[in-house]
């Protein structure tokens, strides 16, 4: 199987998801459509990388996003009226959106802990035992005295909620922090 392509995708593309989602939320008129839009962009990037991997993954990701939105807007002129961002807005330079920065270990861990704390209590308990204590689902079920099937459900749910918080959802509360970061970067540079 093409395992390395998947690793590449996680490393080079998913790493930019918070920024991508923030960008989409800003220029796309209907925020409900953003998850589907994101998916469509990913499909295009992934399929294109199956042929040839782009040398500048981040730039390629955003170019793909831009092209896709431009296409969609052209096709449906109705949306275009009253669109929050018009087509010119789509030409923002990627690096203007937010300077590339690499989060530190501890920040990453903090974000993870926060996302974890925001889980519903039952789901959080299951995830704690499974992920922190590395119990198997079977052991978790025994420990909490519930059916294994229920644990499996909570695991699926926890997976989705953490993904939403750490990838897509990280876009929401993060803009402030990033603004101060970039200011700080300038100060030093």
């Amino acid at each position: 199987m093409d395992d390395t392509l998947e690793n590449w995708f996680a490393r080079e593309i998913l790493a930019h998801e918070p920024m991508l989602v923030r960008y989409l939320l800003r220029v796309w008129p209907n925020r409900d459509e953003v998850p589907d839009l994101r998916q469509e962009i990913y499909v295009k990037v992934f399929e294109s990388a199956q042929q040839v991997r782009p040398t500048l993954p981040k730039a390629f990701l955003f170019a793909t996003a831009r092209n896709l939105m431009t296409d969609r807007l052209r096709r449906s002129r109705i949306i275009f009226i009253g669109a929050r961002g018009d087509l010119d807005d789509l030409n923002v330079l990627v690096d203007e959106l937010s300077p590339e920065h690499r989060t530190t270990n501890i920040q990453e861990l903090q974000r993870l802990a926060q996302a974890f704390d925001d889980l519903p209590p039952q789901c959080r308990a299951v995830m704690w035992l499974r992920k922190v204590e590395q119990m198997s689902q079977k052991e978790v079920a025994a420990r909490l005295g519930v059916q294994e099937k229920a644990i499996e459900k909570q695991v699926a749910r926890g997976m989705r909620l953490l993904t939403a918080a750490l990838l897509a959802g990280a876009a929401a509360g993060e803009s402030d922090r990033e603004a101060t970061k970039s200011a700080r970067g300038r100060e030093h540079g």
Partner: protein
Amino acid sequence: MDSAHIEREASHWLAKRDSGAWGTDDEQAFAAWQQQSTAHRIAVIRLQTVWQRADRLQALGAGVPRGEVPAPGTWRFSPTFERENSVAASDGPRPRVRLMVAIAAAVLLLALATLGIGYLRLHDPNTYRSQLGAIEIVSLADGTRVTLNTNSAVHLAFSAAQRRVDLIDGEAFFEVAKDPRRPFVVSAGGRLIIAVGTKFSVLRGASETRVVVTEGRVKVEEASGSVISAPSTELAAGSIARAGSAGVLINHATVAEAETYTSWRAGYIALRDTELADAVAEFNRYNRKQLVIADASIARIRIGGNLRAQNVDAFVRVLEEGFPVRAEDEGDRIVLHAR
């Protein structure tokens, strides 16, 4: 097409596989599902990436009794030096490897201790110390950044109620992450400097503590639990405050002026109409080779400019060229005479 629906399906597959009740037929069915569309494969990659990343939570489980789930917000972060880290999907080391690294580190520490190297203080995980002439940046768990000036030390005592830092020696600049529920308190020379989210520097001098605020506001209070506590003083951005035994003296300057007091962060000493005696004291903080003023008559010469903190020679040259000063290099020190 619907991404939420696809993600739900993908999570069910992955959770089932995680349960262990997973046979070859499941494996085949899952593979077939992924083959159906790229969107399916991508949903799997996204969930799996985060699922693997969640293994890092183990780092926070230390000290919690096994089988018990602690309440939200009770994580124990230990502060670490800022370490750049590649983004996202990189798998952490396997738990067993991590354990081995921990054991190796413990053995090394023990070896150092038995060798009698007086480094133990440095290895107190909550104490950070910078070397002479060095500037050290420490990133704390709460997102705060502390820049230690030359030969300085801080001790961290974070609790649920407050983020307390004791400035043991020298000077530090604090870029405090906002957290209204946990004030950030710096204790230095009998004073408490309290901030919520702001940038300021604290210098612990022999007779006074200097606080310079470059952003936001901070409060300065008496640290002693005396019955008659002096009212606290609030400092706005641009304030340069000197707190001594007599009280707090505040100079309301501009932010730009206040920032010259933090120029050491870039390795510079900013002199603004500074008396030579003070300038010399400033240079001596950074360098082993100490400057000594031999004649009182030159001590009050006023000088200005930005100078590299570690370049004493350049400073001395400037003095000799522009002022009635003659320098004698005695090896371990430079003596300044009137000319």
